[in-house]
């Protein structure tokens, strides 16, 4: 590196540091207070690609999607003030789902900070609750170390978003650039590693003595790269696995021990298993309210082991018998050798019984003239051989995707779980397309969600992102409509939503667009979309009043699921 020890501007140091972090793509939107950084980009364009988004929120979701698909840190950039505040939704989304992104914002010059200068916002203050950490760089000499620490903090421990706010004068200031090579020392940051010997033996005692154990696999399984280990633990001890929404992909869909997703819209067998278990082994999950239902009746007969890298999650929502604050990858290495082979004959039989009581079969066999969302997802699964990365949005589309697209591998299911950010899927999929080159990428989104970030269609076309966008159009904000149907006497207040002609929208953005309203047209249309290298939009016109079942009403016991009303009669047709 001939550039070492040379005098550079803050803007140049910024790009030098990003390149040293291995960054190859950034998603951003320029503005007045990032002009020096953008001007310096001209000298680094051979090493870093900048993707111009249409909104800063889109940039954050792209960085997020890139991070979730690649395991690397995603980078988003915005100018000060409105550019920075537009990032807050993306930061909160990444924070809730432990996604490692670094967001860089421009700031007014240090000399005028605090004077309400043009486009000034206290963005480090505003983002305090939705970032893992943040930096306001007030001295050029701190710039390189701040960037380095930001990436380190974002990707280690429980990953999360870090914001770096860089005033314009710091971008212009010059200093001798010496890239720090010493180990990063943060006196207050030591992500935990191992379980104690005592914890390991207690865990083994509980696991080996359990008669009705269930593993709960969360996003932490994917983040820590332990899906193989979780599978090994499951197979060795013959322990069924239920996943959270973000834990989907941690065990192959068709694996005999996979119970599927648990929780509010989880599979009946998963919820019954959790409620009747005598041991829960919670791995990298946080007992979210959507997963536990009513706290006081949650899995009442079970002992509970909870392994999580974030101490704050332990004993937060559910009191557990053994809380292990450590790195899941290390804990599983410590535990698995001591796990004894078990048959769990009664438990296996019981789960088989519950499996017969699935809603899945019923809806797929339903004979109707109109498309059903579940059929669409099932066909997308069939037409992609279950191998695609599917980025789903939020609401009914997200739940039917989780229920009907069988994911076999980690990081093939990307969605905004914790925050439930509508509009996440399209930009996140664009970000994913920079990380995933060997798989199809499908977006599953509703007619409401797509309109929240529809401007990013331009970004998709501009970058020729190879994504296929499936709009599940039921003419409603479907999940809210469903709650109105079930809990507000079907008063559909402000949930019917007007949409443009999506095929014409696609055409206007100069991308192929199709409309499908018959089951037999799904696969042929998919084939056309798959044949096109680049973004394609397909609008699926589906049943307006379809409802996602099973459903555990908020705050109700997990086993008291509202089932599809016609389940019994339809099941007989099969």
């Amino acid at each position: 590196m001939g550039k070492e020890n040379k005098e550079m501007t803050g803007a140049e140091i910024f790009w030098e540091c990003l390149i040293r972090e291995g960054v190859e793509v950034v998603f951003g939107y320029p503005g007045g207070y990032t002009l020096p950084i953008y001007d310096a980009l001209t000298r680094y364009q051979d090493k870093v690609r900048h993707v111009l988004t249409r909104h800063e929120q889109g940039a954050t979701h792209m960085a997020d999607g890139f991070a979730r698909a690649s395991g690397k840190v995603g980078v988003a950039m915005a100018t000060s003030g409105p550019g920075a505040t537009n990032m807050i939704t993306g930061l909160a989304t990444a924070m809730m789902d432990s996604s490692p992104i670094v967001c860089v914002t421009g700031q007014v010059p240090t000399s005028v900070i605090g004077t309400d200068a043009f486009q000034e916002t206290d963005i480090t203050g505003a983002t305090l609750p939705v970032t893992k950490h943040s930096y306001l760089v007030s001295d050029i000499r701190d710039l390189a170390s701040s960037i380095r620490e930001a990436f380190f903090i974002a990707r280690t421990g429980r990953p999360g978003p870090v914001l770096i706010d860089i005033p314009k004068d710091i971008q212009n200031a010059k200093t001798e650039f010496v890239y720090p090579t010493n180990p990063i020392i943060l006196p207050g940051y030591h992500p935990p590693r191992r379980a104690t010997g005592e914890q390991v033996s207690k865990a083994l005692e509980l696991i080996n003595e359990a008669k009705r154990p269930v593993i709960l696999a969360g996003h932490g399984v994917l983040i820590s790269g332990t899906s193989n280990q979780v599978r090994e633990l499951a197979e060795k001890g013959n322990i069924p696995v239920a996943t959270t929404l973000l834990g989907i992909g941690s065990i192959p869909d068709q694996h005999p021990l996979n119970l599927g997703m648990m929780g509010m819209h989880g599979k009946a067998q998963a919820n019954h298993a959790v409620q009747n278990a005598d041991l829960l082994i919670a791995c990298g999950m946080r007992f979210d309210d959507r997963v536990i239902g009513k706290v006081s009746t949650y899995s009442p007969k079970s002992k509970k082991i909870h392994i999580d890298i974030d101490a704050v999650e332990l004993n937060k929502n559910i009191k557990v018998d053994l809380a292990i604050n450590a790195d899941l990858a290390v804990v599983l290495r410590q535990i698995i050798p001591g796990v004894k082979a078990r048959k769990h004959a009664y438990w296996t039989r019981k789960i088989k019984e519950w499996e017969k009581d699935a809603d899945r079969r019923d809806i797929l066999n339903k004979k109707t003239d109109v498309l059903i969302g579940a059929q669409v997802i099932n066909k997308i699964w069939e037409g992609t051989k279950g191998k695609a990365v599917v980025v789903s949005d939020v609401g009914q589309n997200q739940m039917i995707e989780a229920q009907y697209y069988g994911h076999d591998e980690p990081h093939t299911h990307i969605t905004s779980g914790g925050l439930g950010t509508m509009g996440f899927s399209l930009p996140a999929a664009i970000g994913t397309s920079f990380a995933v080159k060997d798989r199809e990428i499908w977006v599953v989104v509703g007619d409401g969600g797509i309109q929240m970030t529809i401007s990013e269609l331009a970004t998709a076309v501009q970058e020729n992102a190879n994504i296929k966008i499936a709009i599940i159009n039921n003419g409603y904000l479907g999940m809210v409509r469903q709650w109105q149907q079930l809990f507000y006497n079907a008063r559909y207040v402000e949930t019917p939503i007007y949409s443009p002609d999506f095929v014409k929208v696609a055409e206007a953005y100069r991308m192929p667009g199709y409309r499908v309203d018959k089951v037999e047209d799904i696969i042929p249309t998919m084939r056309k979309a798959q044949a096109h290298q680049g973004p394609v939009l397909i609008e699926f016109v589906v049943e307006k009043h379809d409802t996602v079942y099973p459903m555990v009403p908020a705050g109700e016991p997990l086993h008291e699921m509202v089932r599809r009303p016609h389940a019994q009669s339809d099941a007989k047709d099969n």
Partner: protein
Amino acid sequence: MQHTIIALVEDKPGVLNRIVSLFRRRNYNIKSLAVGPCETPGVSRLTIVTDENDSIRQNLVCNNLLKLINVIEVEDVTNVPTVIRENVLIKLQVNAANREELKNIARERNARIVDEGERSMILEVTEGVGKIQATIDILRPYGILEIVRSGKIAITRGDNGSEIKNGVVGKGTDSSRATEQVNNYLY
């Protein structure tokens, strides 16, 4: 029940903001907060008194504090032998008729007279030496002009120094662990 927490934090801009924001965000109540430099340069020491009845939630307060990058150590010293002090300054209305009476009260209550004006007097009371609330109650009928309290500060008894390693919640000091993760903590 009130809990007393000692926290050692990096002395950097915005750190106090992060701590206060955390308490608000997680819906914890701060009864008092005292901050200042400690024996180690670059490190500030906080004594925080919280009002949290649930012991699990109290433990989460500590863990949440530890989760902040700039927080180095946290200890809940509620059930540990501790010297706790709080100072209060009370400015009183005084006249010729009650001046001597008030001086007597000050003596009885272990309060120091730190300033005397023509029509006023400032008393200093230290909790632990005197009793702040009882003194205020006694003085109130005489006419209190102003009260200012420092918030509680706490220090544990015994021969150990301020390295809070034996705390209920401790971060450990193995500084090699963080760097170990640079390379191996990817997906």
